[in-house]
């Protein structure tokens, strides 16, 4: 076990350096991607943008799953379970409501032909 840990540490250090710097780099680059992607969103779709970002930020469910996954029932597992429920409400609710909004933005047949 100790030998195993040492080897992984060794590999970590040689390949990626400090894992925090590695993650922080990903974080900063993702902020830049977010910046450019969001500026390209048309203002008419800012409401769907908000609800879809809400839905995807529920990917925090992965943290909840890890807590809810172990075999024995303890305090953390219950916390994890509650987090799974909360995040699931968001995932389903967020995507469905976004979809409902976008369905309304479908191209309509030209001019007043829809309503006589």
């Amino acid at each position: 076990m100790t030998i195993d840990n040492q080897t992984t540490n060794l590999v970590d250090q040689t390949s990626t350096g400090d894992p925090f710097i590695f993650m922080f780099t990903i974080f900063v680059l993702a902020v830049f991607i977010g910046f450019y992607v969001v500026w390209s969103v048309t203002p008419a779709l800012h409401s769907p943008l908000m609800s879809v970002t809400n839905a995807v930020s529920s990917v925090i469910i992965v943290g909840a799953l890890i807590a809810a996954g172990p075999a024995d029932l303890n305090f953390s597992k219950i916390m994890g379970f509650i987090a799974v429920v909360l995040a699931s409400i968001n995932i389903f609710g967020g995507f469905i409501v976004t979809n409902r909004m976008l369905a309304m933005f479908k191209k309509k047949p030209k001019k007043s032909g829809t309503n006589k």
Partner: protein
Amino acid sequence: MSETVTGFAYLAAAICFIMALRGLSSPDSARTGIVLGVLGMVIAILTTVFEPTIVSFDLIVIGIIVGGAIGTIVALKIKMTALPELVAAFHSLVGLAAVFVAIAAFFAPEAYGIGVLGNIEGASLIEMSLGAAIGAITFSGSLIAFGKLQGTLGGSPLVFSGQHALNAVLSIILVASIIWLVQTNYELAFWIIIGISIVLGFLIILPIGGADMPVVVSMLNSYSGWAACGIGFTLSNTALIVTGALVGSSGAILSYIMCKGMNRSIFNVLLGGFGGEVDGPTAVAGGGIDKAIKSGSGEDAAFIMKNASKVIIVPGYGMAVAQAQHALREMCDLLKGAGVEVAYAIHPVAGRMPGHMNVLLAEANVPYEEVFELEEINTEFSTADVAFVIGANDVTNPAAKTDPSSAIYGMPILEVENAGTVLFIKRSMASGYAGVDNELFFRDNTMMLFADAKAMTESIVQALD
């Protein structure tokens, strides 16, 4: 699943989320984007579930089914006019989920590979407490925003003396507790961090008025992203970090756009106390009342618009409150049938969340090709015969351009005064939320239509028929 495969799977999920946001650049590609978003979420969840440490699935399955059912029912039942409240409620759930994940990680650090209980690595503790703190602020702040949007709390800002000092003291205690936690691993410090953050969330949002909610909702959107990021660092999970960063910057950009739409800085909004919701006949604007106003009926408005060749509609929050969008669409259909050119002009801060008006108009089947943003349409008012302002006020007030002493000076406005005739649907002579008189009401080419937005639009529709 090996670590390499897991890593690639999370990368794939992150790319799906980026593409989901990218899809929103046009209404045509948006729905493909949503499919990718769902796909990303499925990949992320399945990848985690296949981790070797996850051996018991009962609570996971129950949790997803229960949560999924609640989410689905709420999302299908909700009325489009209640959208801002719903979004605020969802933000609070993300925040709360982040808090619970942080608690779980604190009490079972082994599962996350960040140490053992009572001896967690310092870096992880910082990340965890930041995630928990931002999550808790998002949670309580969104609850207040929800209450204000729904009307249960009343939209007026709640200001008391010493408020900013109190917030500052609490923030200092918060930072001190994080340092304390990192040095000692004490459980108590962790609970203090969460408790203070919840209180801070309440205190930050309470002083902000109802009409500033577009900024608040965007800001909380951003916070929920940063909270997810904090947790992502704790878990060393790249999908979570990337997604959190995307959401965080998205919310920040929306807040910026909303602030710019009001020509106010984010600090000005956050420090709060700006106006309240002044509506209802009790809040009759003083001073201006002795000036002459021309008021008209639905028939008058119908007559004017039928004889126009171009009408620009300016919707505002009043339209949302009265749910007048369907009647409005009907009115515009009749006008178009009579050969009148119709366009809609949307101010960036119209309504209670970014893009609020666009969604309501889309709900009423208004083709989005007819809906324009401020910069696109502002010059066209001079060629329009009629500007039809329904439930908006401050966003049309010329004082924003001409009167440096006005509270809204410098705010970009829709220049409805350049149109041949301006029709205002308002319930009363009350000023807008900024508490500023609108001189447009007293101009010769303005006609006031005093009524509920929906009732008035319906009576215009009848007159047109």
